[in-house]
């Protein structure tokens, strides 16, 4: 590669306190940089990201007539934006900046007895960065307008809160929910800890608000089908699942005056098909035309076409309202949005696979959400806790904590803490002792994690109420075949002796995992997963609501286990973050677009099919067939540029000369 004689590069090596200087010789690296071709200036400084450090860059650009800047410091994923601004303020184009990552990828990973090797590596990294900097070009960020609408996927308490905040900030918000009603997990709970508020009582007002907010369009029974576009200009195709029932607006659109579902329930009364209600975990029946529970929002019935026999009785019962259409088909509807919040929540793990606890084998072993429904006044038993085996009121109930959480045995078990089971199990213990006088509560635990506001106090309260705490993991549970009572075997690790307790009923505080389908959804939006399967935030501490895909934000448990207060807090944070680009009106995109060098392009069209975004097309230019890039569609991956046999595609900021210069600098330079 020919050297660019015009290039004058300034190199700045950061100590980062002792983060870098503790593991390698920063002064030596800076001195070495001076010997490199095209380096006009080199310096080292304690903290390059500090104001004096940034000023050094600005002053050096002017004083030494620099054409490019290299900062050897932390990761460009951290401070590239900072130094680009310093470069710009110094009078250069902000893309004439390159970073050598000598911290995350050097000083921090070669800490012990590696001083010389780390210093050598840093020199190589600086040499490579300088080599690229020589070939850097002026680029102009592309500014694109932002669609003044947002979407929230998942309408549990997190999604509802996020949608309410966005809508109240004046933003048109589409609240997408795949089940027939909004409310999510929280609507299945009886009470909430530690205040013992009735869950539905505090959630229902938010559900109602979401249902009638002028800026919220409630899209229940919808699922995300495909996602195209980028921040500011997402085009999301939703599958509007055939509900079989029209709301008044839909009915009016079909010319049925005064018709549509008013939620009267006449249809469900005549429906002959009986199925288990998934909202009640199959402990209560529903018809083939149904609502989940009395407080659904929107109040509109849904036909389960998988079990409907199309007898037409419901259509007759509905009469003049003509709300029911048993021939309804799924529809695909497109929505243009600027930003999106994912709030898909959680499922329990398949606790049945932890065979030692006998879930599904023993009638009286249930999981915590089933317990919530059984103790809830709106549940299948009207709030009277009964044993599933014989319908009797239990006199002793055990709660098995960490049922699959904090468990490294593999299979369905999860290594992480599910974070809210300790607290809701304390609440469950309180509820049975309150509702059933004389009923004994046993909690089998490893540690009680009562970390939140007023949580520890709640823990003390339950202790004083007489709940028995046994510190030990439950080894196994066996059933007495005659009485259907359960024997819980564990070791009381505080007393150091084995325990066998006979109980009427056992509740498993099952570990949680991402909602079924969340994995497919996150891929549609280009969101990564953490190692434990939850969606990955942009930064665990400093950007917990954002993702690596600009314009996509996270709220609630889909990002990791959290309780209701934390979910709501994160939802408000995500709503704030998602509203910023919309209020700004436009966003700047990094101009890493593909460009066709027409003189080199043979018009073979190989690249056209490679592009996942359909940004490339063949066109006529000066009498020849050449490829043309639609910049608005190009996201800058470079898949076309990596393949073009003629080298006719120039990937801005990652050009072939720039990359080859780095490779050459590493392998040929510096000997």
């Amino acid at each position, binding site marked *: 590669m020919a050297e660019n004689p015009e290039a004058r590069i300034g190199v700045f090596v950061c100590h980062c306190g002792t983060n870098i200087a503790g593991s390698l010789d920063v002064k030596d690296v800076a001195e070495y940089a001076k010997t490199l071709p095209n380096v006009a200036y080199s310096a080292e400084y304690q903290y390059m990201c500090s104001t004096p450090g940034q000023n050094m860059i600005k002053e050096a650009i002017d004083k030494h007539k620099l054409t490019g800047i290299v900062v050897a410091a932390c990761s460009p994923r951290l401070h590239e934006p900072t130094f680009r601004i310093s470069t710009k303020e110094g009078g250069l184009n902000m893309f004439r900046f390159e970073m050598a990552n000598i911290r995350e990828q050097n000083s921090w990973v*070669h800490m012990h007895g590696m001083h010389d090797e780390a210093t050598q590596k840093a020199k190589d990294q600086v040499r490579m960065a300088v080599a690229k900097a020589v070939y850097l070009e002026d680029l102009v960020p592309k500014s694109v307008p932002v669609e003044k609408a947002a979407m929230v996927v998942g309408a549990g308490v997190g999604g509802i809160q996020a949608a309410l905040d966005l809508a109240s900030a004046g933003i048109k918000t589409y609240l997408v929910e795949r089940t027939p009603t909004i409310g999510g997990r929280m609507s299945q709970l009886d009470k909430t800890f530690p205040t013992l508020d009735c869950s539905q009582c505090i959630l229902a007002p938010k559900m109602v608000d979401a249902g009638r907010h002028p800026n919220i369009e409630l899209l229940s029974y919808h699922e995300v089908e495909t996602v195209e576009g980028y921040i500011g200009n997402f085009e999301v195709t939703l599958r509007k699942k055939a509900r079989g029932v029209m709301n008044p607006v839909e009915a009016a659109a079909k010319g049925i005056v005064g018709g549509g579902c008013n939620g009267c329930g006449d249809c469900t009364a005549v429906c002959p098909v009986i199925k288990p209600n998934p909202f009640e975990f199959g402990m209560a029946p529903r018809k083939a035309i149904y609502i989940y529970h009395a407080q659904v929002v929107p109040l509109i019935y849904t036909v389960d076409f998988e079990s409907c026999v199309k007898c037409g009785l419901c259509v007759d019962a509905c009469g003049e309202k003509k709300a029911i259409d048993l021939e309804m088909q799924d529809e695909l509807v497109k929505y243009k949005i600027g930003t999106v919040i994912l709030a898909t929540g959680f499922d329990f793990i398949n606790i049945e696979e932890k065979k030692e606890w006998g879930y599904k084998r023993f009638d009286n072993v249930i999981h915590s959400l089933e317990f919530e429904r059984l103790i809830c006044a709106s549940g299948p038993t009207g709030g009277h806790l009964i044993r599933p085996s014989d319908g009797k009121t239990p006199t002793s109930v055990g709660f098995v904590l960490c049922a699959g959480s904090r468990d490294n045995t593999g299979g369905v078990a999860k290594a992480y803490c599910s974070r809210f089971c300790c607290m809701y199990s304390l609440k469950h213990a309180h509820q049975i002792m309150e509702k059933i006088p004389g009923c004994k509560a046993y909690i089998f635990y490893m540690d009680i994690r009562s970390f939140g506001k007023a949580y520890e106090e709640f823990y003390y309260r339950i202790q004083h109420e007489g709940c028995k705490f046994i510190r030990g993991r439950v080894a196994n549970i066996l059933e007495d075949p005659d009485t259907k009572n359960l024997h819980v075997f564990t070791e009381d690790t505080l007393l150091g002796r084995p325990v066998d307790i006979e109980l009427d009923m056992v509740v498993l505080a099952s570990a949680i995992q991402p909602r079924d389908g969340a994995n497919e959804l996150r891929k549609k939006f280009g969101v990564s997963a953490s190692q434990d399967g939850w969606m990955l935030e942009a930064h665990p501490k400093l950007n917990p609501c954002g993702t690596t895909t600009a314009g996509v934000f996270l709220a609630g448990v889909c990002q990791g286990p959290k309780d209701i207060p934390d979910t709501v807090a994160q939802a408000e944070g995500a709503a704030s973050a998602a509203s910023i680009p919309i209020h700004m009106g436009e966003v700047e995109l990094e101009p890493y677009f593909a460009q066709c060098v027409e003189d080199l392009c043979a018009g073979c069209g190989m690249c056209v099919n490679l592009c996942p975004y359909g940004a490339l097309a063949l066109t006529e230019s000066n009498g020849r067939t050449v490829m043309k890039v639609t910049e608005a569609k190009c996201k800058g991956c470079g898949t076309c540029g990596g393949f073009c046999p003629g080298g006719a595609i120039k*990937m801005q900021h990652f050009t072939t000369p720039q990359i080859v210069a780095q490779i*050459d600098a590493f392998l040929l330079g510096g000997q």
Partner: protein
Amino acid sequence: MADEWNPKIQAIICNWCSYAGADLAGGARIQYPPDVRAVRVMCTGRVDMLFILKAFVDGADGVLVSGCHFGDCHYLEGNYKAAKRMFMIKSLMKNIGLDDKRFRMTFVSASEGAKWGKVMEDVSNKVRELGPSPIKEFQK
């Protein structure tokens, strides 16, 4: 240092997964051998086969391309396309008599810092086992 041979391994890694994973390894202070120098690209789809060949011609003892897991690509499918090309590189290396174990493609996500450290160890050990690239000898 002059006497002792240390392998020169060129890595080309994607911004969204492997580069982030490498940063995570740094944050977690996972220690690994200092033989690899990384070039950052936005996506492994950008990796032209010529980059890899150029690195070998320049005398690299090993080359690593690392991207997102299949299905996790920030650009939907760039890593699939890269992986296809990497098979071509391997067969090409076999044809010219260069041990194809000197080249490797891995998939390290943004949350797999520990895996990045492991990949660094493995790649370094493998190349050390194979010794200096024979291409350097031919060029002398």
